Each structure stands twice: as structure tokens, then as C-alpha cells.
């Protein structure tokens, strides 16, 4: 088991290497000059050239890449071109809101989605099934920012139940922390719920048609244990896979959600950095997000062993 984990962790390295190359090339081949942005308007070309030299942007691209990767390997994500602070500490300062948002979203979304998917499968072909699946199609098709502004309009502005925007750290109390997270979590989780609910329904329908479900029924097992004890356990592996893959959806959504709800998290950090062409921040955040994604999917892979005894042996 430990051998497997170590092997899988090592296999992350080439993946992260490819990510590093892609991110770097994408940014450096895209138009826009950070030096010009930092210098501001009405500056002489000499000044810009000086700033470029300071930032190392006058070096050939391959050398810039090697310098960046070299420090990456020592755990250093570099310095922000705009703030001068280290990227690691900037991400660290902004981590709490993003982790909070991701945590509440995943927790609520996974339980809600599995519940809805099981319900739809149990009521396959009925109105309940069609309503749930209709919601799923909608949840997947409507963009995060539309859902976000709609939620703000209804629940914050009209009903005044919840705050419009912003973030309260958990250190100031769990209740205010949660109040600020409700709407963004719903907006962010919508597509994720839709995705997981759909795969849950499909997999459950397959499992419910299996011979062993008939055996369970012939034994006198009631509906609820049939669904959750006998069927859902068999559907767990595909569902876990989608829960893991769907994290990509959340990462994309976090950036938009934090902007819509004015949450000072890592997503906002990277949006601001993109506007300023602050390469080290953009690269650093993307490396962290990719690392999280790969790590989550590694955990999902390892979870198969616990979910299905046939994979264990």
C-alpha cells in the first residue's frame, strides 16, 4: 500500500512538469508586457527596458523557464512582479477564503448530488426523475456568474436573508463565516452537483438491474437499505471518479465565484494578476491548483481499494 502511494506520488512529477511547460509557454507567448504595466503611462522606452531587465524579462524565454523551474524545485514560487512579495506568502494570505469556499461546496454538493441521483434512479421514469434531471441539465448549462448574480438579487437584495458579498474569516465566528459562504457555495456547486447527480443516477440504474439486487429483494430487504447498502456501494467507484474529475470544474468556478461575490481568495489573486501580467503569481497559482487537482485524483484512485473489495486483491 505504502509502495503504491509512493509510486503514485512520484508519477505526479512528470504530470506537473508538463503543466509547468504549458503554463509558462502560454503566458510568455501571449501578448502583453508586465514591464509596461508596472511603468504606467507616458514612460520612456528606456525606463521600460530597465524594468524588463530588472524582472529578467530581457532574457531568452528558455533561460527564464530554467530559472523559474529551478526555484520551483526548491519549493520557491518566485516573487510577484507587482507587489514584490513572495508568491508563496501571497497565496498563503489568500488561502483561507478559497479553502473555506471549496470545503463547504464539496461537502454540501457531494451529499446533495448523491441523494438526488439515488432519488432519480429509484424513481426512474417518473416526474421526480424528470425534475431532478431537468435541474441537473440546467445546473450544468447556466454559467456560475449568472447563478451568482441571480442568487444575490433574490436572497441578498430582495429578501435580505444573506449578505450580498464579502468574506468573514472563521476566526470571527462560524455563523458569520457560514452566512457569507452560503450563496457562493450554491453558485459554485451547481454544475458540480449536476455532474455528480447525473453519474449517480446512471450508475445506480445499471446497478439496480443487476442480479444481486433481485437476490436482495428476494431476501426481504426494504427499499432504503436496497438503495444505500446494496446499490450505492456498488456505484461508488464511478461516482468517486467523477467527484475527483469534477474538482477541475470547481477550480475554474472558484475564480469566477470569488470575483462575483468579492471574496479575497486565491481566485481573485490570480484574476488581478492576469490583469497585470504578473507572471509569477499566475504561474504559481496554476501550479498549486494543478497540484491540488492531481493530488485529489490520486486520493480518489486510492479510495477505489476501500470502495471495491475486488480491486483490493
Amino acid at each position, binding site marked *: 500500500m505504502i509502495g503504491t502511494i509512493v509510486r503514485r506520488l512520484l508519477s505526479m512529477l512528470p504530470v506537473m512538469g508538463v503543466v509547468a511547460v504549458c503554463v509558462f509557454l502560454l503566458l510568455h507567448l501571449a501578448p502583453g508586457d508586465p514591464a509596461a504595466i508596472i511603468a504606467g503611462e507616458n514612460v520612456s522606452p528606456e525606463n521600460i527596458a530597465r524594468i524588463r531587465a530588472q524582472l529578467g524579462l530581457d532574457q531568452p524565454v528558455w533561460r527564464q523557464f530554467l530559472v523559474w523551474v529551478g526555484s520551483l524545485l526548491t519549493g520557491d514560487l518566485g516573487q510577484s512582479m507587482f507587489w514584490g512579495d513572495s508568491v508563496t506568502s501571497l497565496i498563503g494570505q489568500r488561502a483561507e477564503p478559497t479553502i473555506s469556499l471549496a470545503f463547504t461546496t464539496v461537502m454540501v454538493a457531494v451529499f446533495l448530488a448523491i441523494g438526488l441521483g439515488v432519488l432519480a434512479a429509484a424513481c426512474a421514469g417518473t416526474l421526480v426523475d424528470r425534475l431532478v434531471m431537468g435541474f441537473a441539465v440546467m445546473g450544468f448549462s447556466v454559467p456560475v456568474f449568472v447563478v451568482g448574480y441571480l442568487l444575490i438579487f433574490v436572497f441578498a437584495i430582495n429578501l435580505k436573508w444573506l449578505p450580498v458579498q464579502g468574506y468573514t474569516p472563521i476566526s470571527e465566528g462560524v455563523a458569520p463565516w457560514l452566512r457569507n459562504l452560503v450563496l457562493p457555495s450554491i453558485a459554485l456547486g451547481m454544475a458540480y452537483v449536476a455532474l455528480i447527480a447525473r453519474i449517480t443516477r446512471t450508475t445506480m440504474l445499471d446497478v439496480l438491474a443487476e*442480479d444481486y439486487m433481485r437476490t436482495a429483494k428476494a431476501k*426481504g430487504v426494504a427499499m432504503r437499505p436496497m438503495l444505500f447498502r446494496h446499490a450505492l456501494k456498488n456505484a461508488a467507484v464511478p461516482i468517486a471518479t467523477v467527484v475527483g474529475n469534477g474538482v477541475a470544474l470547481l477550480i475554474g468556478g472558484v475564480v469566477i465565484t470569488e470575483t462575483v461575490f468579492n471574496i479575497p481568495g486565491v481566485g481573485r489573486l490570480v484574476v488581478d494578476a492576469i490583469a497585470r501580467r504578473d507572471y509569477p503569481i499566475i504561474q504559481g497559482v496554476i501550479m498549486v491548483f494543478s497540484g491540488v487537482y492531481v493530488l485529489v485524483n490520486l486520493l480518489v484512485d486510492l479510495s477505489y481499494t476501500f470502495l471495491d473489495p475486488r480491486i483490493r486483491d
Partner: protein
Amino acid sequence: MRAGAEPILSVEDLHTHFFTQDGVTRAVDGVSFTVAAGETLGIVGESGCGKSVTALSIMRLLPPGLGRSVGGSVRFGGRDLLTLDEAEMRRIRGDRIAMVFQEPMTSLNPVLTVGEQIAEAVMIHQGKSRHDAWARAEEMLTLVRIPDAARRVGDYPHQFSGGMRQRVMIAMALSCHPQLLIADEPTTALDVTIQAQILKLMLELKGRIGAAILMITHDLGVVAETCQRVIVMYAGRKVEEASVLDLFDRPLHPYTRGLMASIPRRRPGAPRTRRLQEIPGMVPSLREPLSGCPFAPRCPLATARCTAEAPPLEQHGAGHVVACWEAGRIGVS
């Protein structure tokens, strides 16, 4: 039925239909029979004759929305199972009537240990604690002769061979001492050597528990080895019923005779090169209404009357009924 024995199960004019986009299939079309306490009744017939659907109708395990029993009654323990609500039916399933299925490889849940699966029935029906039910599961595994039961009770189905899994299925089915065990082709998927072992085990445990068995099979050999009485089904109907000895001695329905002729065996004195006989033609579609005898198109003895008018079940000797206009002629020949 043995003289004086009160039937525990009495199926009366059962009609089970399947409703599909292409129309209604009359899978079971007016079947009646009884099972006495402790006896073994065989239902034999080829694929699609309605024997498995009969079993599933009794247990009310038909695929929901697709198959439904539309007529007749299934009386068990003084009640008509077809009219019970789902909760009452659940109390009977696995407790008073248990079932063993054909496919041991797919009939056990792959993510639950065999112990959990056996103990579950015991907990549901006998209200035993997890611990007691587990002990009972172990006891049942010993009873079906799984070696090293104490250790294997915690194993998953994929760690057992096909024959062993069928033993687990039997252990599960008998764990609550049912009055009736429905075995739907219990040995069809097994190796020939294992088949005999499983049949022997079922008969032995049946005697010990005092259960009756409804043995659904396409294999007349299984019938001969296990059953006291046998029903022959064709195209959703019962065409012949007799004691096993009587049926093998004096098969009266041309279909039964065809089935027996298609068993490979060497009769004493028969030439070695005798070709195996087959029944020509195909089973009729159960979607179109059948006029006359369903077997008439394939029957070597069919007359004009056979295609026009369905023969009723008639008594031909003690406990021997057959639905054939020409049965009298066959009996004499």
C-alpha cells in the same frame, strides 16, 4: 400430491403478462398447481416457456413496470400473495419463501461479505443482533459444507468458486428456515460434477429443515433425481402433470415425449448410432393470441381439431393430467 398432505402453496389460474412497446406477451397463461409441505415439485420446459416467470410471479419479483400478474391467485399461508402490500410481501420473502437463482456468479453482491449477506436475512426476519446473526451465518456456511467456515464468512463473493457461491446462496436462502424454497435452475451454470453435489446438498438440507422445494429446470435429469412430482410447461401453459415415475414411464403429451427423446442416452438393445432426436419447429410467439393447442404446429400427431380448439387438462390415471386431444391414443400405443 401425497395423500392427505395439505398444500402450502396453491397457484390458481395464474396469468402473468409482460407489457412492452411491441405488445403484450402472455408469459404465463393460466397455470395452476399446488405444492405440499416437504415435497419437491419440478417445473420443466424449454427457455421461454414461462417457468421462471411463474417463480418470479410467486415471489413478486417481476421487473417493475414490465411484468405483472394480471389474473389468478397465489395462496400461501392462508393469504393470496398477489394481493399483499409490499411490506407484507417483504416479510414473506426470504423468511417463509426463499429463492436460489441460476447465476451464482452474479447473484451475490460483490461489495458485501458473504457473512453480511447471510446475516442480513437473519437480522431482518428474526430480529437477531448483528453478533448473533453473524454466528448464524457461520453456522449456515458450515451446514452447506464450506470448509473453514469461521474464516470464510468474512470473505467476499469473488473469493469463492461458482459451486461455492451457489452453496452460499443456499445457505442464505435456508438461513431463516423457509417453508418453501424456489430454486430457479440452481445447477444450470455449474460444472457437471458440481451439479450433482449441489442437488444432493439441497435435498439433504430440505429434509433437515422440512422445506418444500419448487425446482425450476429445463433438465429432465435434475427432475428425475430430485422431484416427486413434475409439471411440464409449454408456451406459458401447463401441458402435463404427473408423479415423476409416472411421467418417465408413461409420458402422455407429445411435447413431453419429444423432450425425453431429446435426452442423449443409450437404451439397452438400441443401436449405438441412434441419432439424437429434436423437436422440429419453434416455440410460438406469445404475443399473438393462440387458438388451439400451442404445440400443434410442431406436433407429429396434430389433427385439424388441435389447431382449432385448445385441449383442456384431463385426468389420465391417478394424479396424471395432460392437455392433449390425442393423449388417449398415445397412452395406448
